[in-house]
């Protein structure tokens, strides 16, 4: 059974007499016929609620953030285009991951060799194993709040410089008067602390 209130079906069933489609009227060219605002909200809500997980999934397969961003834009368009095919009693995230996987494949095929980081074999492995990990990204974010508080000020400063300020390793090393090697060591330690802290909390929540 299709998603209840699918805007395409609603259009067919209730707007048939209105012999004008918004595609004709607005020339949008994305196959949209008519959208009921409530149903639109449903679609946006479900996509938004899975955005972080899906982004994590894509990011794991193409580790560069900019690449993941490009792919996410394509994925969102396809999700909308194929929304009619989505079965509401099925797993939206798993369905979206399938679409994302195809888009990652397309992206890798089109990209020049230097932009492809991992081999196809590894990406296939990761794609299979990634769903379960990415599925808990929201829990991970909740745990992150607590774990960040457990960093010492310098560790917190490193993380903030990286993620708030987009500072490069060299810039951080320069501003803190440390060597690049020392900063990398500190980062490894900081990521390890956060990783282990989050892992403990997720395992505790699952127990």
């Amino acid at each position, binding site marked *: 059974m299709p998603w209840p209130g699918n805007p395409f079906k609603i259009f067919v069933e209730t707007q048939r007499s209105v012999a004008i489609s918004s595609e004709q009227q607005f020339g949008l060219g994305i196959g949209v016929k008519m959208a009921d605002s409530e149903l639109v909200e449903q679609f946006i809500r479900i996509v938004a609620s899975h955005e972080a997980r899906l982004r994590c999934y894509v990011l794991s397969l193409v580790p560069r953030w900019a690449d993941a961003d490009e792919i996410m834009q394509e994925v969102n368009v396809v999700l909308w285009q194929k929304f009619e095919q989505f079965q509401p009693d099925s797993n939206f995230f798993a369905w979206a991951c399938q679409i994302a996987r195809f888009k990652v494949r397309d992206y890798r095929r089109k990209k020049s060799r230097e932009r492809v980081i991992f081999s196809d074999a590894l990406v296939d492995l*990761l794609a299979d194993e990634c769903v379960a990990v990415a599925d808990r990204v929201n829990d991970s974010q909740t745990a992150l709040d607590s774990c960040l508080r457990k960093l010492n000020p310098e560790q917190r400063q490193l993380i903030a410089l990286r993620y*708030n300020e987009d500072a490069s390793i060299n810039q951080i090393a320069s501003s803190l008067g440390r060597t690049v*090697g020392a900063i990398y060591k500190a980062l490894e330690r900081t990521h390890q602390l956060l990783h282990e802290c989050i892992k403990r909390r997720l395992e505790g929540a699952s127990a």
Partner: protein
Amino acid sequence: MNPSSAESDELAEARALIVRLLWDESLTPAALARLEALMLRRADVRLLYLEMMRLHAALHQRAGSLAIQPTLETAEVDNDTGMSDMMILPAIRSVEEEPEVVEEPPHTAFPRQPAPAERPRSSLLPGRRGIALMALAASVILAMSILLVQLATRKPAATVVASSDAQLDSGLDASQGAAVATGKTISLVSGCLEVKFGGGADVVIQAPATFSVTSPVAMALASGRISATAAGAAHGFVVDTPNARVTDLGTEFGVGVDSAGTTEVHVFQGQVKVAQLHSANDSASAQNPTILSVGQAVVVAAGIVKPSATGAAPQAFVRTLSPPPSLDVVDLICGGDGTTSLRTGAIDQRTGESGPLQPAFAMDVANPIYHPVPNLPVVDGCFVPNGKIKIDSEGHTFDFGITSGTSFYQIRAGGTFPWPRQRNGEPFTAVLGGVDYSQPGHGFFLLHPNAGITFDLAALRRLHPGFKLDDFRSVVGNTHTFRLANQPPRILVLVDGTPRYDRWKIWPKDGPLEIDVPLTDSDHFLTVATTDNGVSPRYDWIIFGDPNLR
């Protein structure tokens, strides 16, 4: 069973490589091969990688809200380990300093921008990347949301909000409030049109241009020039050209397409993303996007995205149809559109070259001719006055009489710039009548004889539709304080080759003089020049303070 020492070492090695991958997004081929080998062989390394990527994604989601300074919460006791923060191994202090191994970042069209020196590192506000990433993350859903709401309510995707003598082909309505047909190719034959998109973007289109509105959040530009302001909810606005897709990341930018299909993109505020398109309808082929920041520009042609050496050119784009109260002439010389208060620019009167020029002092000019200034559309040209000489691109001439035919220093606008020195060793000063025109809130340009500069008033009127040029005003004076007996310089302001202000001798003791040259709607070129009256350009520190056009 506990992992063996070798396995633990491999796991630690993998963690180090993953952290480097997260932070630099690049590893040496050897390091990458090693990481891949470990991941292919060991499921626990893959799990580590995936969990680290999840952490990376979660931290990105928090970008902008990560406090740098320690808080009271820092002293919280860790329930997991029983340790307080102070007991956790310090991240940096305890690390033994190691030889630096700096991996070269991958080549990109633009080098990573250095962090602004004045950025407050303790700011709790979202950082540059944080803002950009959040905008990116939200853009698709936001754009979709706007698009669908537009569909539901059947509002037009774009509406005319202002026009300046705009004429559309086929008699289409260009009046205020008129809906712009979606999906229809429209030619703007003359004038300018300001259009408000349903998604919130404001776009000014300059004639001649051919364009279409494709949705409340996107347009296509086949030829011509547009400028777009996409603030707040309008982020994500898209302009497609025949060979590029320009996506707003929270910004103000200009896009131009010439008759050969070459695309220019200029960023005036914020950032935009530029990706090449292989065909007009091929969104999937938008590859290798380039992120442009404020002040940058690129040209997309023949499959290449080439950075512009001169950067963004505000003078080349109409950015608003609301006329400004006045135009700052210093800003015009520095590359602005007269409203952006830019400082520190230079023009070499011997060549027409402009930009951040190296200082040049005693400058002999064997054959003085009029030079266009190609990088500044509102500056028609420059010259070294000597005898009868052409002073604008329409061919108006003026006889300045015999001068020494030499110059000293380029035409300089500030702010500050590398000061020349007076004969007694004292540095140049921009102080006239007790006012230092180099300080914030003021501006000046130095026109040390022999030098002349011509502004294109018609270009200024095109750049600022509706702006009425009534007069040129400035303070002028000689700031040299160690004046030896000599022939003082001459100052002229001419319009279309005819003097409207002419002072033959100006001494330092004269102090600041006020110039007010009336202008009419038919005036085309405004020329400002100084000469040494045929003796020597020494000691003639002629500055124009707070020059403006009203």
